[in-house]
């Protein structure tokens, strides 16, 4: 009788840890322009390879190449650059404001600006995003006033959410931005439900769900894909793979699967994988998926390959779990610099204009911040009344809450 070998328990590990040299050699990067662009009514069975590719438009010389190029006009690209620069400047100022104690908490987008800024430009009025906390580009690129965002971050007397929500958990129905929960992945399946409702009402609007790489492990992700597949919901399901879920590398959530996009294949949902630091590529796949949804061909799952350059939040220090210089060696570069170089290569932009734009953007952020701070910050100036705490739990305040409000003396 042969003795069975002892079983081995497997826990995935990232290639490198603090102190090691960064190493992305295991991340294959296809040439820009090398991935085909199928028609929007493609049978998911015929495009399974796209779940393992990386759709890229901008090449190393800053040229837009291949079948996915050309979805955004010159003016749109210049505007896109400004949106990303604004988001970056906004983040820097708010990160500082958090350090200064003007708010309790902040989450920045450094390195991921292209994903939400470019995607937003593919949507139509009335479409609804179900975002996570790292898609404020949807608001910036959607024309939501920065001062409103800051009022929310400062929980001041003009906070549109009356001081009830953690900073950056924005909500604007008018701007197609669903109230951020803060619980992970819960809203992925809600996006599918919203899209089902739009189809039930024979409307023309579509929904967009957002999730990070780590949070795809939640059951809600699975439920969302089942419902989207079963009811062929007009929804785009976005996975932002920024490599890190706080301190946990993406391999813990991904397990043995080759890519996050490949999760869609078993559900018969077309799955695309795209360079998330390439504004043009993000815009192109967003156009493809939104047109597909609007034309009744159903859902699309998209994985944006990007890198979280900053900390997870103002409460996190990444040097404890990854090499400090890792972000500098990220092979897909920086989204702002790449779009800037593209515009310069095409003679539409210059270093001087970029510097000037940086100054203008910073000025607009500072102006907004000054206005927001006039209405208060977390511990100073105007704040929502304690009475607001009891409002809006229900449409009509029930007797027990009226009694408690009275007890609180507010």
């Amino acid at each position: 009788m042969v003795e069975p070998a002892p079983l081995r328990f497997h826990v995935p590990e990232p290639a490198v840890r603090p102190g090691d040299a960064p190493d992305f050699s295991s991340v294959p990067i296809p040439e820009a322009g090398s991935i085909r662009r199928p028609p929007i009514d493609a049978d998911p069975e015929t495009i399974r390879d796209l779940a393992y590719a990386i759709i890229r438009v901008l090449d190393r010389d800053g040229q837009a190449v291949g079948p996915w190029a050309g979805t955004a006009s010159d003016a749109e690209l210049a505007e896109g650059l400004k949106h990303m620069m604004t988001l970056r400047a906004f983040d820097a100022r708010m990160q500082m404001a958090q350090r200064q104690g003007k708010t309790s908490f902040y989450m920045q987008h450094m390195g991921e600006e292209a994903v939400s800024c470019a995607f937003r430009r593919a949507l139509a009025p009335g479409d609804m995003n179900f975002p996570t906390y790292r898609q404020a580009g949807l608001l910036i690129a959607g024309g939501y006033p920065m001062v409103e965002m800051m009022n929310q971050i400062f929980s001041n007397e003009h906070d549109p959410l009356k001081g009830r929500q953690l900073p950056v958990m924005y909500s604007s129905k008018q701007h197609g931005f669903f109230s951020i929960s803060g619980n992970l992945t819960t809203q992925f399946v809600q996006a599918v439900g919203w899209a089902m409702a739009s189809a039930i009402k024979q409307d023309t609007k579509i929904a967009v769900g957002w999730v990070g790489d780590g949070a795809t492990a939640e059951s809600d992700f699975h439920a969302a894909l089942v419902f989207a597949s079963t009811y062929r919901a007009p929804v785009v399901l976005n996975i932002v793979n920024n490599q890190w879920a706080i301190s946990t590398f993406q391999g813990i959530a991904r397990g043995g699967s080759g890519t996050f996009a490949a999760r869609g294949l078993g559900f018969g949902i077309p799955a695309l994988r795209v360079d998330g630091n390439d504004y043009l590529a993000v815009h192109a796949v967003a156009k493809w998926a939104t047109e597909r949804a609007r034309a009744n061909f159903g859902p699309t799952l998209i994985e944006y390959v990007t890198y979280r350059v900053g900390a997870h939040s103002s409460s996190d220090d990444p040097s404890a779990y990854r090499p400090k210089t890792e972000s500098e060696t990220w092979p897909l570069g920086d989204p702002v610099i790449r779009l800037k170089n593209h515009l310069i290569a095409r003679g539409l932009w210059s270093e001087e204009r970029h510097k000037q734009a940086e100054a203008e953007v910073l000025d607009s952020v500072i102006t907004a911040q000054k206005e927001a701070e006039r209405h208060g910050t977390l511990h100073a100036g105007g704040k929502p009344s304690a009475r607001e705490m009891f409002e809006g739990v229900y449409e009509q305040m029930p007797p027990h809450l009226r009694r408690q409000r009275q007890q609180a003396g507010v």
Partner: protein
Amino acid sequence: MIEAIRGAMDVCMERDDNVVVFGEDVGYFGGVFRCTLGLQRKYGKSRCFDTPISELGIVGAAVGMAAYGLRPCVEIQFADYVYPAYDQIVSEAARLRYRSNGQFTCPMVVRMPTGGGIFGGQTHSQSPEALFTHVAGLKVVVPSNPNDAKGLLIAAIEDPDPVIFLEPKRLYNGPFDGHHDRPVTPWAKHELSETPVGHYVTPLGKAAIRRAGAALTILAYGTMVHVAEAAVEETGIDAEILDLRTLIPLDLDAIVGSVKKTGRCVIVHEATLTSGFGAELAALVQEHCFFHLEAPVARVTGWDTPYPHAQEWDYFPGPARLGRALRETLEA
């Protein structure tokens, strides 16, 4: 009571195109308890449909639909299966209005059969109402008869906020007073089996006095209302029976009015004792009626064990156990 529940959904679907009904086995077949029978045929597959076996998905999709502007009325096949959807109910449905300052709301009903008495064991018998009454932003309803069930369900579907609607499954086919060894009585003979045709509303937050009395007050809801009636008849105690009907919002005025009058209070529910809704009721009675109380507030409930199978009638708080508590409270 099944017809009353179905009637409520039928009335609401007829009056409002935004009312949609879905869940496991709910569409073509009409639900395992037949509460949605015929609705798909009458209103079409886009208004009443089957779902994958995913309570999380059912409630999560319903939250998105409600945010869009529909009024989903979804079925969880048994209350025992609601836990995968708990995060969607607690963190999402219940808080959406609050956290978005009213930009998004969640007018949604989650129906589920609750309670025991059918030899369903631990996975078809639980009474999880306290898990929902503890959550700010939810309303919680437990009807005890067909007349209320229809009016309360219509009120729940028309309510602007999320409502957990717990249907005592042992009452589906008749009033049940806990005497499991006696023949089943159909609803037809019961005075509250009559449901008016068409639309009517039984308002949320209003209790009903099922029996007026002077000796003590019994606070009950769902199946326990009928158990209380049997216990009162068998002990001959002149108790006042209050059917709470909705737990949130709670009709505190009715409770306080009755207990101040009788000076004694017995609370009865099927759910487990510790941290059960009876604890909240006992605390409220103590706070508001302390100087009128002539005896400690008593609780008669399921034991703090998982719901057993073979021992169901030792677990279930029937009229004998309630009757003993009534006598003790009266003699205290």
